[in-house]
């Protein structure tokens, strides 16, 4: 053991890496047609790692001089990724079973993507951060194009690789500019270097490039254009993971760099963030209206949700960060819940068209009810969890005096109710098509759906425990309310 380095801090990451590698090895042993069973092993392994994160309660330490940070903020997000990964693994089981090739690699890549996210949120330094980002993104390249015989999946993969590479280039350029001006890659030191001086033009360029790079990952308008195409083409469980976990991870890293690294220039970049947030909310919600494909609809919906999340950064307060944390958790359950319904339906009908959801309530009441609650929660209707999440975000910006911004967000939420309810209308009021039978849903998926459903309702009625947790984490991370 190297003196002064406490490797036990990395237990979660080490276990995750071991799980990913272990899955690869197990795939060599298990015969080809039974490899999809490794999915259950993945779920178990991830659950175990989730238990391990419990021992990190309240731990706030750095590893190798601030290169890697284990704080409640990072741990909060790691748990979120693990929960999302578990739900996504469960919902990919039917997909992988039908796949017929490389079944085991799928889960292994999923675990590596999760590991990348973990590194991303814990990184206290720019190079490590970039490493995490790329680990996550490269795993996703493969996962997105996993249906290699499907033209759309391949198209999605190619688009994702090329655009992502470009955005990475932007990000790297930005990182190098920041490094060049501050002579350090450690985020905390960047902040102390910048605190003294005035804004330099090159620094502004660096910040803008970083914003564009992260904006791509979080799919902020106008850097969002890849999202609908990739979301549509990718296997549905991967779409869910991409929409939920990778977005949350990039957002967490974004929060760490900008709030911890560049607080000195907040008046500059907050203006930019406001503009991006407004564009994202407006465009995401408006373009969702004419969509006829449920995955594209959810893609635009998730773009608009990212716009709401930015409000928490605009607030630049611990309340805002708390609201982001709270909203992220709810965002995981509502989105993954909705995507699980899409998975269940598409494995049975093979369609993603909204019109094929007609009469879903008669054919599969559970699916329809889960979808209903997820959509209503996304729309932010009380007493569901999404309402509380939005409420905290809006309150956070109102406290800063951005009443117009909150009003715009509320207005856009109203627009979103329209397109969500269009889906609900099709599911509940339209007659099911002729000769359509009852839809069978695998047990594991049912359990995961009911679990999400219960959380959406319970967190809406009694949000206090989770919001207290989110607020206290936010407070240790960013103890300012100015």
């Amino acid at each position, binding site marked *: 053991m190297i003196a002064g380095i406490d490797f036990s801090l990395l237990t979660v990451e080490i276990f995750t890496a071991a799980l990913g590698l272990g899955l690869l090895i197990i795939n060599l042993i298990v015969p080809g047609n039974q490899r999809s069973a490794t999915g259950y092993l993945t779920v178990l392994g991830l659950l175990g790692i989730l238990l391990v994160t419990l021992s990190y309660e309240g731990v706030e330490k750095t590893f190798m001089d601030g290169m890697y940070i284990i704080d409640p903020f990072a741990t909060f997000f790691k748990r979120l990724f693990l929960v999302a990964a578990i739900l996504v693994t469960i919902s990919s089981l039917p997909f992988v079973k039908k796949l017929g090739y490389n079944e085991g690699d799928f889960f292994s890549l999923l675990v590596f993507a999760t590991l990348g996210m973990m590194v991303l949120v814990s990184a206290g330094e720019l190079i490590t951060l970039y490493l995490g980002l790329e680990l996550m993104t490269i795993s996703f390249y493969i996962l997105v194009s996993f249906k290699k015989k499907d033209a759309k999946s391949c198209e999605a993969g190619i*688009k994702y690789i090329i655009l992502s590479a470009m955005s990475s280039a932007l990000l790297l350029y930005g990182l190098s500019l920041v490094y060049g001006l501050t002579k350090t890659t450690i985020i905390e030191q960047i902040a102390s270097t910048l605190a003294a001086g005035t804004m330099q033009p090159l620094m502004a360029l660096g910040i803008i490039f970083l914003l564009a790079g992260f904006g791509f990952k979080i799919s902020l308008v106008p850097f969002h254009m890849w999202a609908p*195409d990739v979301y549509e083409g990718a296997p549905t469980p991967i779409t869910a993971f991409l929409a939920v976990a990778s977005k949350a991870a990039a957002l967490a890293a974004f929060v760490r760099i900008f709030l911890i690294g560049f607080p000195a220039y907040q008046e500059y970049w907050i203006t930019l963030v406001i503009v991006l947030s407004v564009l994202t909310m407006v465009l995401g919600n408006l*373009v969702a*209206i004419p969509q006829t494909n449920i995955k594209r609809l959810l893609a635009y919906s998730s773009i608009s949700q990212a716009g709401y999340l930015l409000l928490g950064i605009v607030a630049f307060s611990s309340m805002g960060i708390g609201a982001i944390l709270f909203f992220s958790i709810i965002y995981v359950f509502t989105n993954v819940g909705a995507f699980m319904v899409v998975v269940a339906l598409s494995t049975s009908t093979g369609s993603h068209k909204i019109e094929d959801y007609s009469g879903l309530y008669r054919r599969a009441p559970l699916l329809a009810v889960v979808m209903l609650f997820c959509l209503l929660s996304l729309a932010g209707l009380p007493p569901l969890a999404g309402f509380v999440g939005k409420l905290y975000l809006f*309150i956070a910006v109102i*406290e800063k005096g951005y009443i117009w911004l909150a009003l715009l967000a509320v207005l856009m939420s109203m627009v979103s109710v329209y397109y969500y309810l269009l889906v609900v209308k099709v599911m509940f009021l339209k007659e099911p098509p002729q000769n359509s039978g009852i839809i069978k849903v695998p047990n594991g998926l049912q359990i995961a759906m009911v679990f999400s459903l219960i959380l959406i309702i319970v967190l809406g009625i009694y949000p206090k425990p989770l919001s207290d947790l989110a607020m206290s984490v936010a407070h240790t991370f960013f103890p300012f309310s100015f």
Partner: protein
Amino acid sequence: MLKMLSNAWLIPIPPAVAFVLIVLVTKRFKLLSALLAIFAITLSFIYSIGILLEVLSQGITMNNPVEYSVNWLSLGGETIRPLLIEAGVLIDPLTSVMLVVVTLVALLVEIYSLGYMKGDPGFSVFFGYLSFFVMSMLGLVLANNYFMMFIFWELVGLCSYLLIGFYFHKHSAAKASKKAFITNRWGDFGFMLGIFSLFLIFGTFNFNDLAEAIGRQHGAFLIIPALLVLAGPIAKSAQFPLHVWLPDAMEGPTPVSALIHAATMVAAGVYLIARGYILFTGLEAVSFAIAYIGGFTALFAAIIAVVQFDIKRIIAFSTVSQLGYMVMALGVGSLSAGIFHLTTHAFFKALLFLAAGSVIHAAHTQNIFEMGGLSKSMKITTWSFIVGALSLSGIFPLAGFWSKDEILLVTLEKGFTGLYIIGSLVAFLTAFYVFRLVFVVFFGKKKTRAYESPLSMTVPLMVLAFLSITSGFAGAPFVEKGFSSFIYFQEPHHVQVNFLIMIGSTVLALGGIALAWAVYVKKLIDPVLVTDRARSLYVVVYNKFYIDEIYHWLFYRIMMNIGKAFNWNDRHVVDGIFDGIAGLTRAAGAKLRLVHTGNLQNYALVIFASVVIIVIWMAVPVLGGIQ
């Protein structure tokens, strides 16, 4: 055992679970559904008894209640006024007594319904609704703040609506349920505005915090909030002028009338006044208004009850009248007397309704003049009804005697001589109308064939009859630590035994009974001749002073026209604007969608173009860029 009190929130849970299970699982199995509901309410009842014993043994008084709450929602901080809404329970003697009354009556009513609702196609649903009601009512009683109370207040209103319209295929039932709902909206709206204005003034919904804050600064500025809050009880407890819904509510099944529209929900209004008592007592004008609204309603409804034919309507007007008594007691300043009467009334009025249900069950009519001589074939029903009637009339030593006497006593003691006279007059009328019913229905010539109801119906009658006799002793003046030293406001107030008043009211009650006997048994006076001689007066009273007709006119002539105007505005102006906006939004969405060409090069172009635009923007100081 503090645990028991802190877990009091568990009390409404069994009925809630029963409701969910009945609706989702056991709906097809009728008996199972009913037994589930009864089992659930039994659990709640046992827990409530436990709470009452705890409160007694721990010496919890009105002045040191215990409160357990969690923060349900807390928002705001520096620039925004903090909003804290709790979910919690408040336990004091008042709560504990209400819990026992509600669960006990509900238990008996549910057992009774086993027999009464037998063969009804909606049997399971009925028990589901009853469970839902009990859950809501218990939540209302336990609430530690106005906000929670309001939620449950609306839920009991919803249950009332559903159960009045239980036979919704009957036109009159559907109409009655709508009437109850709409009438209650007026009160609920006022109540809501009231609690919001209290929140704006004091920044809290919590009863204890409010009481403390009001205790510190009390003044005329509270008159408006107090009157707004008062609107709730006036509608819910059917006080004049919002009493019109309660008689029509008798369209619901009789067990519902007994539980919701006699013993518990309508008493929620009285409970609400008692809960926020400090708000009203300090304002002389408001207290005065409460007292006179109560007194007037008591007299008004008693007069109407004298001339009705329908057995349930007579008892319904009697309920309105008795609620008037309770409200009057609270108005003159005696919390103890009001709640004491609420308790005894819950028992004897539930008894009267259930016995009436038993009669209707057997005779298949509700018109008292189509019945007669039922005492021979329905012994248990007859005797329990007579016990209820005696208790209602206030005959020594039944429960109603003690509680009514205390109200009259307090009224006189506080110097409301006018109200005392009204109250005494009501006592006379009450005895007359209820014994008119007794003599016509149970004695005289036999007009219908009727058989005694099954045991599931008669046992609850006997239990309630027992309670109607004995429950008054808890508050009798000779009892050392009686009701008035258990439930009181600020400090216990012991009324002096006043034999003159006791004797006076007894004489009046006996006089009423004697008059009824003379008219309907001995036929010394022919009621038909009397009504003929005072035809116009009779018609006015029979038609309930035309209040319904006045409301009908107001509603159709004024409200409907205002509504129509709003409707036109909505359809043409508002919808026009919003259809335009929606059309624009949709069109914008459709146009913006075209930006997504699916072409990779375009996407890349957009990304880089955006970066360039942002850079230019940040580089130009005029546009807010760096200096």
